[in-house]
């Protein structure tokens, strides 16, 4: 057996599973201190279906804690950004494009030092140890507790980041070090931003991870604990302490991953219909497709991997206006006031939920209160919703093949059984706890994203080398060797660079070594 828990902003969902079978599922309120929410979720599972804690082989947790801490700019550690790249890059120092209040919240300090590589691996400048020691002394004097190290072109060669980390670790014992090549990709400012954010969250990460571990242990569970990452794979607690940013998008990711398990469809669009919005993502062979552009988090441009999600303002609480011949749905919503403002609950506002009830697609509130609605209007509103959602799904498609659609979330009753282009809509059971089920999936991954110089006739060899490295990384992260497969592969030539420079991205995923 294993347990999946998804800690959202409002609810904490938990499931007890054997293989892909849901044995118990509970929904509790998220608590301010996290751990008591986990404890009550575990108690809830125990009450629903008594289990022997010793028989639990793994606990997987998805949490929005870290991204919320950043957005609220609280509990962030005093952080320094060390950039290795002088004499280049000095005009745009670290955090140059950050909102001022966030720089203040982390007491952000910047140190520009010599180092860095050219695109082809040559050194821009040698590392200057005296310069780094002076920076370390200044950090110590200013109470810096976490450091982000970013070297120019470290995705091509990470030696300077590693050497600087070694030196700073010796000078500043106890200070957390985050290295950019482990966090982001090409694009210095965006990668550095992600690394500084990671650094600022390190203390909180240690605190949260300890709290989670304590509450799981308190329930008598001795099995290892894992956290969900943005890409739908797991990381162990040691990794989570070092890379809290890797949890940032685990919410939408887990909901998508849950949808694939529940429906058995592994390449599909997932439509998560909530109260205010519908979020559409795409799963390719069971994993969320990543956004290819920069992602802005709390006003900071970053380039770490996030799922590609497109949202539209259609949900269960969306306001419905107009007549049968000209109807609009959303984008405004009654939100959490649905149960007081919707017609079926005795309110005075026509919402998408009222339309679903009037059409006989859902049974909530009092259907008698919407019996008077014009049939033509009901039909038109449902058609509008179907057309708008189909349009978003269509935008998210990656090939000409029709894409099946899996609907999850409380508002999925609004969707028809089939969308335009013949895409069938799957509506799996347990959709309300899809998040927790998604968290409970036991897979780990390894990734390579680097620029390679592909010499003539060497393309296959270079690609094989990249694939093997990704597989090795997945195994190192805890995958059963035989189970690892390549799930994503991308090769993009880079213009204006000599030597056929090509950016190669490979992702390998395998099953976590867990007995069930």
């Amino acid at each position, binding site marked *: 057996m294993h347990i999946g828990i998804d800690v959202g902003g409002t609810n904490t969902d938990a499931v007890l599973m054997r293989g892909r079978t849901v044995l118990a599922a509970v929904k509790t309120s998220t608590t301010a201190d996290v751990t008591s929410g986990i404890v009550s979720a575990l108690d809830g599972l125990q009450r629903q279906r008594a289990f022997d804690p010793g028989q639990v082989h793994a606990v997987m947790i998805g949490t929005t804690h870290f991204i919320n801490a950043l957005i609220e700019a609280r509990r962030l550690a005093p952080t320094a950004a060390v950039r290795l790249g002088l*004499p280049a*890059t000095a*005009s745009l120092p670290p955090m140059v494009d950050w909102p001022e209040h966030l720089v203040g919240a982390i007491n952000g300090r910047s140190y520009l030092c010599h180092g860095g590589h*050219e695109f082809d691996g040559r050194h821009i400048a040698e590392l200057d140890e005296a310069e780094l020691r002076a920076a370390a002394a200044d950090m110590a004097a200013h109470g810096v507790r976490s450091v982000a190290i970013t070297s120019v072109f470290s995705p091509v060669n990470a030696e300077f980041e590693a050497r600087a980390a070694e030196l700073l670790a010796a000078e500043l014992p106890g200070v957390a070090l985050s290295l950019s090549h482990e966090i982001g990709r090409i694009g210095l400012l965006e990668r550095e931003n992600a690394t500084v954010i990671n650094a600022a969250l390190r203390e909180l990460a240690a605190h949260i991870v300890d709290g989670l571990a304590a509450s799981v242990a308190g329930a008598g569970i001795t099995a290892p604990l894992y956290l969900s990452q943005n890409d739908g794979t797991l990381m162990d607690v040691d990794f989570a302490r070092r890379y809290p940013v890797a949890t940032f998008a685990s919410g939408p990711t887990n909901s998508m991953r849950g949808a694939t398990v529940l429906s058995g469809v592994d390449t599909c669009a997932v439509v998560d219909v909530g109260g205010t919005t519908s979020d559409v993502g795409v799963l390719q062979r069971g994993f969320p497709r990543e956004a290819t552009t920069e992602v802005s988090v709390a006003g900071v441009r970053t380039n770490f991997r996030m799922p590609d999600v497109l949202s539209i303002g259609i949900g269960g609480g969306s306001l419905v206006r107009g007549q049968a011949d000209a109807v609009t749905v959303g984008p405004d919503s009654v939100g959490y006031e649905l149960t007081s403002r919707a017609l079926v609950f005795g309110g005075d506002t026509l919402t998408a939920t009222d339309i679903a009830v009037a059409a006989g697609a859902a049974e909530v509130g009092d259907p008698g209160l919407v019996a008077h609605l014009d049939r033509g209007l009901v039909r038109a509103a449902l058609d509008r919703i179907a057309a708008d959602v189909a349009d978003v799904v269509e935008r998210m498609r*990656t*090939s000409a093949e029709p894409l099946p659609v899996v609907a999850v979330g409380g508002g999925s009753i609004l969707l028809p059984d089939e969308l335009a282009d013949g895409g069938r809509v799957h509506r799996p059971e347990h959709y309300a706890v899809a998040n927790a089920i998604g968290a409970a999936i036991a897979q780990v991954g390894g990734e390579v994203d680097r620029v390679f110089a592909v010499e003539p006739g060497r393309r296959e060899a270079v690609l094989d080398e990249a694939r093997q490295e990704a597989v090795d990384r997945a195994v190192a992260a805890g995958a059963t060797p035989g189970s690892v497969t390549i799930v994503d592969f991308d090769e993009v030539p880079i213009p204006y660079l000599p030597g056929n420079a090509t950016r190669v991205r490979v992702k390998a995923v395998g099953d976590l070594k867990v007995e069930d």
Partner: protein
Amino acid sequence: MTRSITGDDLVDIARGAAILGTGGGGDPHIGRLLASAALREHGPVRLTPLAELPDDAQVLTVAMVGAPTVMVEKLPSIEQVGLSVATLAEYRGRPVTHIACAEAGGVNSLIPVVAAAQLGLPLVDADGMGRAFPEIQMVLPTLYDIRATPMSVADEKGNRLVVDAVDNHWAERLVRTATVEMGCSTMTSAFAMTGAQARQALVPDTLSLCAELGRLVGQARERHQDPVAAAVARLGGRRLFTGKVVDVLRRTSKGFARGEATLEGLGGDSGARLLIRFQNEHLVAERVAGDGERAEVLASVPDLICTLDSESGEAVTTESLRFGHRVTVIAAPADPRWHSAGGLALAGPRYFGYDIDPVRCPAPEVSA
């Protein structure tokens, strides 16, 4: 735009410059950050209308040469930009009075702002192309026998180079080679000319155009109007095709990203396809009827072929084109001098390897 550039103008200039980049030109984001830092440090940049340039002004163009991918990693410095200008001025033994843009599209619309701010010099409201092109000699001054060289090249380490070449094609070869050795992202100054020459050879008002284009597109979006229509109207261009990307083929050859993107028509263009051929920038747009047998070139270089996000009106670069992206392809007339025999020899379809006569942007849409 007023007669000076301040930090507030940069978002609009960057947005407009990306559109004039015709799919290439490099992402202006880093250029915008750098210009913003330079303006913070040195204050606003005065803008001189081309027509007001005195005869004896000493004008230099400033541009980044290299790989945009490198520039987003090894960030250029403000000093590096200024150094390229100082190096050329020193070699020529004559002080510079005005900075100009070599190209208006993409990142190189903003690099000269950095130079002008750092050196405290006025910037000419003009550029050498009225768009973006991939090679150094592809500027109108080449048609007026204005030499690219002596041309200076500066890297971030302080290495400086002056190239004196027999013609502008040689300048391209030598500077490109040096740039690779210097780490693939250099700042260059070139095309030294007098005010009188500049008035003749440059395309006027292009920085104002970038700023206005960016502002109009942003405004249309805020007012829930059609931002693409706003861009078309300002450029005096024409909407060629609206569709969704169904295929993108890429390959690199000789350091250039060549390829084709295929769009499937939407709305009024349903049932048709559009093929866009590109080499960093978009070169040829070809409409293919449903059966695939009849192909018609709708527009080609030297005119501008821009892909805009159908909804936001933001420029879409060839690198970011991907399946499902909904784009509207528009064409806009290039400066008429590009259609002269000399202009076509420099940057017509045949120079890029397409054996077709150039197809000019059709007459502008008449507004009702």
